[in-house]
Every structure is written in C-alpha cells, then in structure tokens.
C-alpha cells in the first residue's frame, strides 16, 4: 500500500471514529496541535484528557508519538485494526504506559480496549495548559 493511500485510509478511520464518538455524546476534538505534533483525536472524559493516535501498521511510530502526548494528557492510546498483539508491541506499550484500542468498524462505540493506559506521571504543566486552552478555543467539529 503506498503511503498516500495508507494515510487517506487512516484519516478516514479517524473521521469515522470522531463522528461516532460525537454521536455518543463524547467531547472529542480532531487534529489537535501538541508540542509540534498533531494528535489524531483528543477526548475529554470528566476531568481527564485522553489522546488517541491511529495507525494501520507502524505501531512503533504510533508509540513514539503517544509518548509525547503524555506530556499533556492523562492517558495516551494508540488505535489499530484488531490483530494479535505481538510480544514486542505489548512490551513497548507496558514500558511506556501507552494503551491500545482496537478499532471496531460497526456499532456505536468505535473502540475495543486491548491494553489499558497508565495514567501519565510526566505531565508538563505548560503543555497541559496550552492543550486545554486550544480545546477551549476550538469547537469539537473543527479540523474534521
């Protein structure tokens, strides 16, 4: 699969997940800038902020990005199509405290929880404040 098609497919999945989450009443933002990266989805659940990075294949890259999200978010997840999580993937997730969602194409809720994220202990107050400020200044439907 060439990279453009892969990206388009990833983007479609992000948009579908976004729509379904909004339909389920979740406050969710798409394409949120954070420390020089762009986070695919950011959900607010009560006082917690959860980031989700979607990847069809390259889970190492997704984990690298999600690690950076932990500087501002309480919980950071990667989301991939359902698969047998390899030992290497599980080890990497555990080491960095990143969670794993499988994307579910049908139904109201787009995710199946595969690995629970650990709460971030490395939140940097400046990044957190900037993220909250961005979320307040944009409507959840923007950038979709």
């Amino acid at each position, binding site marked *: 699969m060439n990279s*453009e098609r892969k*990206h*388009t497919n990833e*983007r479609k999945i992000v948009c579908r997940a976004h729509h379904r989450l909004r339909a389920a009443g979740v406050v969710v933002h798409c*394409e*949120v*800038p*954070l*420390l*020089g*990266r*762009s986070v695919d989805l950011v959900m607010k659940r009560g006082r917690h902020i959860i980031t989700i990075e979607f990847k069809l294949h390259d889970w190492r890259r997704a984990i690298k990005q999600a690690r*950076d999200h932990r*500087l501002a978010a309480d919980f950071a997840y990667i989301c991939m199509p359902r698969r047998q999580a390899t030992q290497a993937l599980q080890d990497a997730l555990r080491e960095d405290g990143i969670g794993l969602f499988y994307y579910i194409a049908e139904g109201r809720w787009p995710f199946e929880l595969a690995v629970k994220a650990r709460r971030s202990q*490395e939140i*940097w*107050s*400046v*990044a957190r404040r900037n993220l909250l400020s*961005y979320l307040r200044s944009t409507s959840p439907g923007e*950038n*979709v």
Partner: protein
Amino acid sequence: MSNPIAGFHIVRYGTAADQKFMANEFADTYDQIVINANMVAHMPSALRRFLEGTSKPYFIDPQTHAFQHDIGHLQSDSTEDIKRSIKGLIQAYGEPVLSIVGKRKESVLPDDFKNTARRVEFCQKVLQFQKDTLPKESEASDVAKYYEFAAEEEGTSPYSFAPSMVVAPYFYMTAKTFSEWLNINLMCAQDSRDACSGPLGVQIVISRELLVDRRMRNALCTRYRRLKPDCFLVWVDGLTEQEASEVELGALVDLLKRLTAEAQVVNLYGGYFSVALKHCGTVPGLSGVTHSMEYGESRGVVPVGGGIPVAKYYYPALHVRLPFRDAVRAARESGGFRSVASFRERVCGCAECVQVTARNPEVDFGVYGKTRPVSFFRRNQPIVTEYPIQETKEHCVRHYMWCKSQEFRFADCDAIRSSLAQAHEAFKRVLGLETVAHCNVWQRLLSS
C-alpha cells in the same frame, strides 16, 4: 600575506534575519564570517552595510558546485525560471556556465572545463566576483566615505571590504564521480593559484561514501596536498556529527589531520565534535569550524541555499538541537526544573537562559517552545500543527549562540570527555539510545 582565517569560530551568514544577531550582541563571540555567493549576488548593498557594522573579516563561498546538479535545484518553485540570485552568479562567472546553465538550462559536466583557456577565464571571473563585488558596493557608499573619514580622524585604518581570501571554483565529488571531477577540481585550484596573488582557499566537497573509502581518501589527500593552498575548506555532504557513524567520523578525523599537515583547514559545516577535535588535540591544526545561527552544523549539497529549519532547543550537555518536547524531558530528568539554581547548574546558565528562566524554570522554559497552531492541507486532508513564533526563534537563536560561544572557548579535554560520558548515561533512558549515542562515539574518537 595576511592570515586568511582570523580565528577558530566562524559563522555563516544565512539570511537577512541573522544580521541583527551577528552584528549586535553576538559580534564579539565569533571571529569571522562566511557568506554564500548567491547572497552576495542577491543583496550586495545590505551585506555591505552589515559588514560595515560588524567590522569582521569575511570570505565568500563561490558555490560553483550549484551548476553541476539537476537544474531543478536552481529554479524557482513558482516560475520554474532560474532564481534571481543564481542568475546573478551565472552572469558574473561567464562561460561555460552562462551558455550551458543560463541558456541551455543544462548542468555542467567535467568535459566543459577541459579547455584550458575557457577554464582559466572561468576561474578568474569566479575570483574576481569574490574580490570585487562588496568592495565595489562600498566605494559607492556614503557611509563608507564616512567610515574612511572617521578612521582617518582616529588614526586607524578603515574597514577593508576585501575578503580575507578568495576560494577557487570547486565541484562536488562522490565515489562514483571522483575520477571525473578530481582533475577538474585540481586544475581549477591550480589556475586560481596562478591567477591570484593573495590568500587562496581550496574547497573540498565530497560525499560520505567517498569520505569513508580509504583508497579514494588517500588519493584525495595525496593530490590536494600538492596544491599548497593557504587554506582547505572541507564540506562533507550531509554529514551530521550527531548522527554519523564512528567509521564516518573516524574518516573525517583522518582527512582533517592529513590536510592540516599541509595548510590551514576549516570545517565548513561542523558541530561540537569538530570543535572538540581541536580542544582535545585530536586535530590540533584545525583552524576553524563554521556554523550558522542555530543551524548549519551540517548541510547537504542540494538544495543549493535556502531552507530554514524549525527552532529547537540546543541542549548543552548533549550538544544537539532537540525537539522541544525532548528538551523538556531532558531538563526535567536532569533535575533542572527544581529551582533556578538547578536549572543553571544542570541545564544551562547562558545569558539567555538566565534571563528567561528567572522565576520558575519549569514554566519559564516554555518560552523556548512557544508555538502557534497553523492549519493547512496535506494530501487533501486538513492538518493542524504548531510552528514556533518569532519570539521563540529569537530565544532559541540567542541561547544557541551563547552555547556556541562557550563551546568554542572551553578547552579542557578531560572535562569534555567526562561530560560526554555523563550525558550519555544521564539521558539514554529518557531520550532513547539513538539520541545520545553520539556522546559515546565522540568520546571514543576524542580519546584515541
């Protein structure tokens, strides 16, 4: 004959925005300026004014390699016409680039320089451009006349607009094209020597592949040493000291050592490793290392000129520009966020950091990463990402320049080696081995 290299710390003039730093608060931190010929062709008046302000010696990189690459690298993205600054160089340098690049829109080949008369004329014009362009600009300037008058009054000599040396035309050599360009480069250097009475620089621009090939490196050193120029200017295409392998850096050390036995040598795009080579006596004869304002420690031969990187925080202990998020992690890991004193001791105590992190380092440090969201479309999809604001870039440049000033001055080799080893241990877990591995590689090479 005056020394073509005024000191170890050389700064490359990159863009007009660099002027305010180079001419003002950092003017005393470096020794000499190098300017790309396309900038000279593009804005000679502004450069004249800038040089008047700094009173620094300078030389010009004639960038003749620009004409050997795919012509697309010389064309404007919007009009596909050859860029104005390059057109200026083509006019100034004359044949064969005028016909081949300017008119036929093709790249030059080694064969185009085999005709002796044509090559000699080309060399003369390239040297003439460097010698005359800025002095001529200055003759026409009222400000220069004022400086001349003021110098006369004060009994000092006015600023000379003549470059401290001229640089022979040169072309980029890869392992595949070495045999074809080597003789042309040597002939251009010899013709320039014959045409030039003052100091002459000979620029050696090679690929990494060529650098590490011992046989070719030997041939290169043997042939170039016969030229006996005043200065060798070395540029290894895209060699980033923090990313290069031990083999590549070892080959760089070997090349620099052998060239310094013959003449002064400047690494035209070098980082802290090159600086430490002199401090630690690994290459004691190294005469200069060049960088730009917050970048320019490495450069590919293409694209020719242009390209301004995103602001990053130069992390002093690692001697590398880090994405801001990594700089935050490293600063926190080192304990630098605990107090102002900790930050100065464990992260950075440069003048900029002292000013910026005066109250609460954890929060104040955010100034180096302040961004604004920018929306754009990539592959027909809306993307929002963050770009540093102008203020951020300026903080990062100032911090970088103060760090560089310190690095070029601080020459305790034992301390350099032990701090590299400490940095490797301190940050490998939080930043990953790839980001810190250069510390161990450098340390080994500086110890050998």
